[in-house]
């Protein structure tokens, strides 16, 4: 077991990580960490648009994961693996990074990959047009990717470089999805 927290802390500090969380996600945890993020950034850059963007990307990432796990749990009781999150918020030079990781079904990979690869190729004007189109699309709670659509576009509009993602195989049915937003 990893118990040398001093080493762990130094690793985090060297990587300029401000907030690190690993565990099951709930709305109250989203709110508490969100409040901490805001408070911290307000002391660093009061009234700055970037602060609002970091908070916003953080909310979209965590609520996307929460909604995904809720859809997976629907009718089958709670499925713990989907509700866990690994979250890092840190600094990278002049920018901030919000990165999250969660376990997803392999079957959900192709549309997710297609959506992200598409967004990565769009400029600001195209992202705005897509945002407006998606904003008026009817909400479909049975669509496994509903909601994530506008959330991903919104994140892509707030990042200063294309949204980055990684997928790692963990077993026959599951992968670990890692989303990285630089703001």
């Amino acid at each position: 077991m990893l118990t040398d927290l001093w080493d762990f802390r130094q690793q985090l500090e060297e990587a300029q990580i401000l907030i690190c969380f690993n565990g099951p996600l709930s709305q109250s945890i989203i709110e508490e960490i969100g409040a901490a993020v805001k408070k911290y950034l307000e002391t660093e850059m009061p009234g700055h648009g970037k602060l609002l963007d970091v908070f916003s990307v953080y909310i979209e990432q965590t609520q996307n994961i929460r909604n995904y796990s809720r859809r997976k749990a629907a009718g089958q009781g709670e499925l713990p693996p989907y509700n866990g999150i690994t979250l890092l918020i840190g600094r990278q030079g002049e920018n901030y990074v919000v990165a999250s990781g969660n376990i997803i079904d392999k079957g959900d990979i192709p549309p997710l990959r297609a959506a992200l690869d598409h967004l990565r190729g769009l400029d600001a004007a195209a992202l705005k047009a897509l945002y407006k189109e998606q904003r008026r699309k009817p909400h479909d709670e049975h669509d496994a990717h509903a909601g994530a659509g506008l959330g991903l576009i919104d994140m892509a509009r707030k990042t200063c470089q294309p949204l980055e993602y990684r997928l790692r195989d963990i077993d026959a049915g599951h992968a670990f999805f890692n989303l990285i937003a630089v703001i």
Partner: protein
Amino acid sequence: MMERLIRDASKASPAIDFDPVSGVLRMQGESYPENTFEFFRPIMAWLRDYLAQAAAPVSMELELSYLNTGSIKCLMDMFDLLDAHHQEGKAARIVWRYHANNPRALETAEEFAEDLSLPFLIEQHP
């Protein structure tokens, strides 16, 4: 007569006060509730019922400092209802107030206003 719709604010949901007598529909605060669509469903239903019988001018007055994308979608649906009301020749407007230190709230308002035809007033707080 319809009942006044009142919701207290929470950390992640706005205060709501929709008054059918005055026609002033207020929302204030931050909006990123758990299950956003369920949160807004009764509010949307109230608005739909109200507009079906509203005779007096309707003014939606908003002071929303942060909206998650689910809330953005719900607001768009509400604004479209108000816009349709306006296009039927009835008086409806939106007033959006934002704080000077919140540039994103201004941009959000502008991007809504671009896609609507009813009067959309954007006012800055000191």
